[in-house]
């Protein structure tokens, strides 16, 4: 990114001599700019809503009176293949978003618990890939030489891999065990090079910048330079990468669950619900639409937020 040097200028300012205190901090400036964009406000609103839904899933379950695994045979018509009774997939005062055909489980409660699973997996995978990716990227970019050679080849190898196919194969072959943990691991293994590659490039350009030279000349040890001088300047990039990683992991998790190798039943998962709903699209489209809408909104919101963050961080430096 061409804007990095100026970003450095802004961000190293507090560390320089004495903070002037008058200029807004970069974080405040970014937030102020983002708040002016209606798309970002709506996206953040949706993300907050989904997170609340996930966190409050047990509360929702208590309010509606339906557990995520609880069957309601009275809500489905056994004589018609188990379709939900009532319009729009059985939406009623009792089941606010209708019920699943074939068993009568409450869709709202399952979507809420599904959000827990999706977010938990996506956020965990993001944390792991970001941490690991940043460390690897910095080692590779900062020290260069043999370390860079090895890490770069590993990254090339992982990125050249048909990762989705490999994930499907790996997850089918592994014993059931703790699926969410396995998913996080598999997503992380194939996810970190994407972060590491960007970080490596940035670190390489930072390594030769004047303030690093200055730190080196003043006798700072390499580790100190890496963590105190280089890392803070990667902050914006890391935030953007992480924000954009979350939706991609949510999407991949849903995809794997859709294919039957992700989260195992009966644990609710959006991908699984959509997969089950495919056969019912003609008679019960709501069963498809509801989890589909939640998945779409979540991925969309994170993506919009991430894109805007990038835009603001890029442009903001120039301003």
């Amino acid at each position, binding site marked *: 990114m061409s804007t990095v040097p100026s970003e450095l200028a802004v961000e190293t300012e507090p560390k320089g001599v004495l903070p002037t205190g008058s200029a807004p901090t970069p974080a405040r400036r970014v937030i102020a700019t983002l708040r002016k964009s209606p798309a970002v406000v709506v996206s953040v609103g949706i993300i907050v809503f989904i997170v609340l839904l996930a966190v409050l899933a047990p509360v929702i379950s208590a309010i509606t009176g339906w557990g995520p695994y609880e069957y309601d*045979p009275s809500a489905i018509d056994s004589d*018609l293949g188990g*379709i939900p009774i009532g319009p729009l997939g059985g939406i009623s005062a009792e089941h606010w978003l209708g019920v699943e055909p074939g068993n009568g489980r409450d869709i709202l409660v399952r979507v809420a618990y599904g959000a827990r699973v999706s977010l938990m997996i996506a956020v965990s995978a993001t944390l792991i890939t970001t941490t690991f990716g940043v460390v690897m990227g910095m080692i590779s970019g900062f020290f260069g030489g043999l370390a860079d050679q090895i890490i770069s080849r590993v990254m090339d190898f992982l990125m050249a891999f048909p990762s989705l196919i490999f994930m499907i194969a790996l997850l089918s072959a592994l014993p*059931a065990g703790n699926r969410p943990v396995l998913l996080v691991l598999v997503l992380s293994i194939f996810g970190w090079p994407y972060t590491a590659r960007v970080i490596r490039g940035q670190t390489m350009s930072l390594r030769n910048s004047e303030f690093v030279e200055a730190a080196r000349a003043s006798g700072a040890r390499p580790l100190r330079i890496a963590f105190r001088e280089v890392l803070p300047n990667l902050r914006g990039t890391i935030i953007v990468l992480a924000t954009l990683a979350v939706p991609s992991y949510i999407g991949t998790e849903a995809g794997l669950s859709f294919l039957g190798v992700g989260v195992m039943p009966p644990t609710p998962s959006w991908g699984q619900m959509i997969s089950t709903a495919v*056969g019912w699209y003609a008679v019960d489209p709501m069963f498809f639409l509801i989890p589909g809408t939640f998945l779409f909104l979540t991925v969309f919101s994170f993506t919009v937020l991430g894109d805007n963050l990038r835009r603001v961080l890029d442009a903001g430096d120039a301003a």
Partner: protein
Amino acid sequence: MKRRTAFLGLAIATSLALVGCTASNAGSGSTGGVSGEPVEGGTLHVLQNTDFSHLDPAQGFDGGVNNFYRLIYRTLTTQGVGEGAKGTEIVPDLATDTGTPNEDATVWTFTLKDDIFFEDGTPITSADVKFGVERSLDPSISIGSPYAKIVLDLPEDYQGYYISGPLDTIETPDEKTIVFHLNQPYADFAAVVGQAPFTPFPADEGVTTTSIDQQPIASGPYRVTEYQRGSTLVLERNEYWDAETDDVRTAAPDSFEWTFGLDAATIDERMIADQGADQDAIAGSVQAASISRIQTPAIQERTIQGLQGCTTYMPLNTTKPGMDNPLVRQAINLAVDKQAVKDGTGGSQLADIATTMMPPTVAGFTEFDLYPSEDSKGDPEAAKALLAEAGYPDGFEFTLDIRNNPKMQAQAEAIQQALAKADITVDFNLIDSATFYEVIGTTSQQHDAAITGWCPDWASGATFLPPIFEGTQIFEKGNSNVAQLNDPAVNQRMTEIRAMTDVDEANAAWGALDEQIMELAPAVPLLFEKAVMVVGSNIAGAYAHAGFSGGIDYVSVGLASTD
């Protein structure tokens, strides 16, 4: 074991009361309706999701492919035509009658009809029948119906024609007579020679172990003219087949055309839409999701429904700690909510609740319910009491092997949910579809329970209870006694029943044994699944055959008009 794949195959429905309704509706018209008389000629299309397992009758072994074999192959005897019990009756086919046993039913003699030919016009002789059986015993292909291996008097380590040479225990005194020597008295041998591995093949031609699977040699009314695995299969008339020699097959269409690899939902859409060539098409059972869409009178008129003749059940591995206690197994039997399992499978149109192991289509079926509950919804309180008595007052936990397929998962989730109410925790072990039966059939790999199904090879308890509950049938690999039940009293009784020479008495005894076994609760009978099939509007002579997992009998179906 192959029998269970019938659940996947073209599974259609046997005729019970509901088919009766369809029949009487349509029967009031002239020749119209799905049950009317088919006319000669035309091409009948079959839409199918998966290809047939094997064209070689020594290898294929499920309801769908056995049904198909009757179009291109003939055996000494075969199953009858017609709904219900008429379809499962054993009738002569290539033979003039259903065989003549000696006094103790260990030697059986069959006489071949005249004017029976292969597709190239050579006459079918007793030597060809003998060769067909010997060929089918080759280890590389003998994965189909196992009865030839079980009852024929074979030299030790007999490895089929190509390795061990001809058999002395099948005699062919002349071209029309064949004599089988058995290793045990077997009153049901007439049904055994109707199994697919008894298909004749020309003894002197270049038939190898693999050639039949590539290019079958027809003895039935059709021959394979085009076959692209997984895509299409075309049958055309075998001009050397003589209808005079065949009381079973109507064989009305001039040709059959299969299209494989279609998505199940696509098949449903096409059958419901009934457009163009699909009016001349038949297909397997519709999905649960399509049930509500076929309720219009117009579509109901071309809908066939009935039992598959199989039992979906949950064997409980009686060798596992906890599961070895009959009280625990009885508690599980009591707690399962069969209504929920049925709803998950597609509701009342696609399944009936099972309380016995033997399905109603098997001769000797005796109805009983040892573990009753209100509306079959399970009785968690009674189950808890039994568990406490068994020494598990705080509940019980076990692992259930399930196949990675939506229907089985829905069934498993319903069981899990119902058992949770009785403090029984069920953990799932999800197994890939392709290896599922291999895993649960390997005693070292199976867990505490599984969800599987069993279909009889012919409508007798003899092909139903022993494979899944007899102690001597426990094998380390390819095990079908998944419950691993090895109860001396049950084993003893099975030996006694097999020695009975009166078939009716034996059938009744199998029905009673079913109840005796269920007292031990080695399994939870879940459902008698049904198939509901929509056929094209120009189809005639379609009915569900009880002997082929409820599939539409191919040899009777045809077109209503060829205009």
